[in-house]
């Protein structure tokens, strides 16, 4: 079943970051094997006469994917809003992955600045993908500010710890049944991705877990399979765990030998 994010429909449930790959060729191959249709990108200061940005811009254009620019590294709402405006200027998209970082060590979002920035950007016609926590109240405020997608972390960015609070993630799914929910940060292994998809999440956004692998293209493929497995399991309806054993083979008609 396709996933609709604002006005765009995609088949893949994997959004892939483009940073930290050993080379552009390995990045391109990882993208291909992931099956992703959405790439996250960023903006940085260009040196005078520099061409690095142009080369990456051309690579992204050639890949022909949907582009989701981020506001990574912004520590205030005003900084994030300006970065979003500049990203729209370059990439000609209303999509923005909104990050307002509030804590230097954990890269935890500043949820107050996040809501403020989301409100401004939504009023300016942006389609905001907010990087948030698993806090329900913040989620409600982001929706009230005009967001139609939520992207909670499951652990700190780049930590590879995997889901740290499944109860909170489950509550978020239950609270926002019709809102696309994308786990944005903290995934380290394909099994982590399967876990959050089994909780009913709509998609997973990855970067370091793929880019930092010994073989990024192979890891991208592994994640694609894991995400599909979790999604299908959720749709198929899983058994609830129980304390006592239940025989899988029926006992009716069993031979009696005593």
């Amino acid at each position, binding site marked *: 079943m396709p996933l609709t994010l604002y006005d765009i429909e995609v088949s893949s449930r994997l959004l892939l970051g*483009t940073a930290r790959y050993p080379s552009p060729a390995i990045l391109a191959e990882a993208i291909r094997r992931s099956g992703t249709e959405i790439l996250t990108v960023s*903006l940085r200061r*260009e*040196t005078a006469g*520099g061409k690095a*940005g*142009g080369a990456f*811009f051309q690579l992204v254009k050639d890949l022909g994917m949907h582009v989701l620019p981020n506001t990574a590294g912004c520590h205030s709402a005003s900084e994030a809003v300006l970065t979003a405006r*500049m990203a729209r200027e370059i990439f000609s998209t209303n999509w923005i992955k909104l990050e307002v970082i509030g804590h230097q060590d954990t890269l935890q979002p500043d949820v107050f600045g996040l809501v403020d920035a989301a409100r401004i950007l939504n009023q300016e016609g942006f389609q905001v993908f907010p990087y948030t926590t698993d806090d329900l109240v913040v989620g409600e405020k982001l929706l009230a500010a005009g967001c139609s997608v939520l992207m909670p972390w499951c652990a700190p960015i780049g930590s590879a710890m995997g889901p740290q609070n499944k109860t909170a993630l489950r509550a978020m799914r239950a609270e926002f049944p019709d809102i696309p929910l994308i786990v944005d940060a903290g995934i380290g292994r394909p099994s982590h991705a399967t876990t959050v998809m089994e909780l009913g999440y709509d998609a997973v956004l990855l970067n370091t877990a793929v880019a930092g692998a010994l073989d990024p293209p192979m890891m991208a493929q592994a994640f694609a399979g894991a995400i599909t497995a979790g999604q299908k399991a959720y749709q198929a309806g899983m058994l609830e765990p129980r304390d006592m054993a239940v025989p899988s083979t029926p006992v009716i008609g069993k031979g009696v030998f005593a």
Partner: protein
Amino acid sequence: MMLIVNGEPEDCPATTLAELLIALEYEGDWLATAVNGDLVHREDRPRHQLKQGDRIEILSPMQGG
């Protein structure tokens, strides 16, 4: 006139933002510019007059997560 370009002081005779980009050899359609915290659209650069001490940001695409 003295400007701050991407955080560094720059003494440049340019009077508009477009002239500044040319003087510093920036080129390409992948750049975004801001002056004193406000976005200046590509098409507005030729008529955007610079003032002494303006803070100019010139950003370009890069890899991101």
